[in-house]
């Protein structure tokens, strides 16, 4: 059995760093826990679900996907693009983050194999930390997950001996490559967080597939103010916008995160907007996650991490919407 004392996690981070990995880990930055590049001396913040997810490592919020040198004549020539895919370990990701990877893999390899995403995915090892507690926004057990779920992870750290130690369980070849950095030991694993299932996601999907025009949506989305906070924090949301930005010498094609919560997202050049109000946009968000995505990719586009509800000032909570939908379907 491989074990590590929980207060020795920075040592493991340091060992990984020495072995040539970029280490990304949850760090408390002035009260906001964020997955960020770990550097020596930083403590790992394990008590809160970080505000961002592993998605940020694989699919950054803004990325240059093409460059063009501009000529005075008005012409242009494509310029070489350096792709950055450093060898990375995400240390103490959440099982709900790792679970998102199959949903992301599916879309980034669907009709087009996305080079940047796949290069980073291949270079990234995800070490999850099983959750020993859940808060009122967590609902992984409603979307086929578990507080100690292993889906998508290369290794799992399981709290043991009353939270004093962690048991390291390798789950893939990438995970096994890290085994040598953890010593042998003995520990009794703790029970993972107990989390009651809040809704039947399959039943929600069935209702969604045939209630596009339900008056439910008008009331359900009244509080939504139409920002992108939920989509950007979501470990699965992956919509992006392409923008060309240039100075006199060069044009850069940017891929920026985008959100179906924005009115601009579907606005046509003609002025027509097929999703004319926030209820249509909230319906899209919920329907995409629980009906369209499972039909297309056999997985929900939601892992129950609860980030969206945790940070929404307007109190929009997708689990609550799903509970109401399940009740409507009965």
């Amino acid at each position, binding site marked *: 059995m491989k074990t590590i004392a929980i207060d020795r996690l920075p040592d493991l981070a340091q060992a990984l760093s020495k072995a040539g990995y970029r280490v990304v880990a949850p760090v408390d930055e002035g009260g906001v826990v964020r997955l960020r590049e770990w550097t020596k001396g930083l403590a790992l913040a394990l008590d809160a679900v970080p505000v961002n997810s592993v998605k940020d490592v694989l699919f950054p919020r803004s990325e240059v996907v093409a460059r063009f040198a501009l000529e005075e004549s008005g012409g242009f020539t494509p310029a070489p693009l350096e792709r950055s895919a450093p060898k990375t370990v995400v240390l103490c990701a959440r099982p709900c983050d790792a679970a998102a990877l199959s949903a992301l893999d599916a879309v980034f390899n669907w009709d087009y194999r996305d080079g940047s995403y796949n290069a980073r995915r291949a270079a990234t090892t995800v070490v999850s930390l099983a959750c020993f507690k859940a808060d009122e926004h967590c609902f992984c057990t409603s979307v086929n997950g578990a507080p100690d779920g292993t889906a998508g992870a290369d290794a799992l750290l399981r709290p043991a001996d009353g939270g004093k130690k962690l048991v390291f369980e390798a789950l893939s070849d990438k995970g096994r490559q890290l085994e040598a950095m953890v010593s042998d030991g003995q520990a009794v694993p703790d029970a993972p967080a107990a989390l009651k299932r809040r809704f039947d996601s399959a039943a929600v999907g069935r209702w969604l597939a045939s209630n596009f025009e339900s008056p439910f949506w008008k009331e359900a989305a009244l509080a939504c103010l139409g920002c992108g906070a939920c989509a950007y924090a979501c470990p699965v949301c992956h919509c992006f916008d392409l923008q060309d930005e240039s100075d006199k010498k060069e044009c850069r094609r940017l891929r920026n995160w985008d959100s179906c919560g924005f009115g601009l997202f579907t606005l046509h050049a003609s002025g027509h907007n097929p999703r004319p109000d*926030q209820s249509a946009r909230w319906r899209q968000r919920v329907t995409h996650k629980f009906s369209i995505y499972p039909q297309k990719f056999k997985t929900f586009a939601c892992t129950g991490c609860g980030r969206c509800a945790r940070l929404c000032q307007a109190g929009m909570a997708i689990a609550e919407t799903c509970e109401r939908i399940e009740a409507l379907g009965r």
Partner: protein
Amino acid sequence: MMKALREAAAKLLQEKRAVLVIGYADRKGRPAVFVSKPEDCGRLVYDSSCRQNLAAYLGKPELRARLPVAVVAPPAVLRSLVVLTAESQIPAGQVLALAVDHDAFLGVFDAAGAAELLRSKFPDLGPEKALLERVAELSKKSAAERAAFWAEEFAKCTRCYACRAACPGCYCSRCIVEKNAPQWVSTAALGHGNYTWNVMRAFHQSGRCTLCGACEAACPQGLPLMVLNAVLDREALAEFDARPGYDPEGKPVIGSWSAEDDHSYMR
């Protein structure tokens, strides 16, 4: 207090002076709740944990289609309602305020009444002590240190625009950050684009911001946006005697011009 608020809201709905009451819900986090039936007014609540500025909903087309409305409004929200009136964003007589403060229900007011209430009962609303301390703390730093501080903070911005959505003053149907012919602000959630966006957002609020704190509360990344707002509030007050939210006919500093303004910077 809660009883008086709920009764007043129910009465407005009964008398059809409002078809919808926008208030704070009696649940954790105190999110917005929309009540259209008098018998549902028991869902309304107000206490110090209410963080949203409900006047932000007046810019939402779905709610503008359901006028007249009444809005539960602590002093900063009352000021926002007056600012929106001064900026012609509220159809006359279509929005009423259910004024609240700490543990008191203060009554039902239209924009003129709200301004009068503010002038008599809350004549000097400004940044709270804790916010002034944050500003003072930052002011001790050198210009280079401050620039480094903001660069580090703005680097965290993901451009989700939760700050904009939470703010009643951000009601433009097409924000300048989304204009691309020409493109004024880089769309990349990085470096100078983030810097420009955050500073520009704050500048557009100068002399209009009511210091409600909703933008900062809404920021998932915890950016200290109120520090920017407080500094601009101070400058707009010192330079232009801007007291947003006290006069429903007052002209916003950023939207007006006077021959008496200081033009010495133009050379």
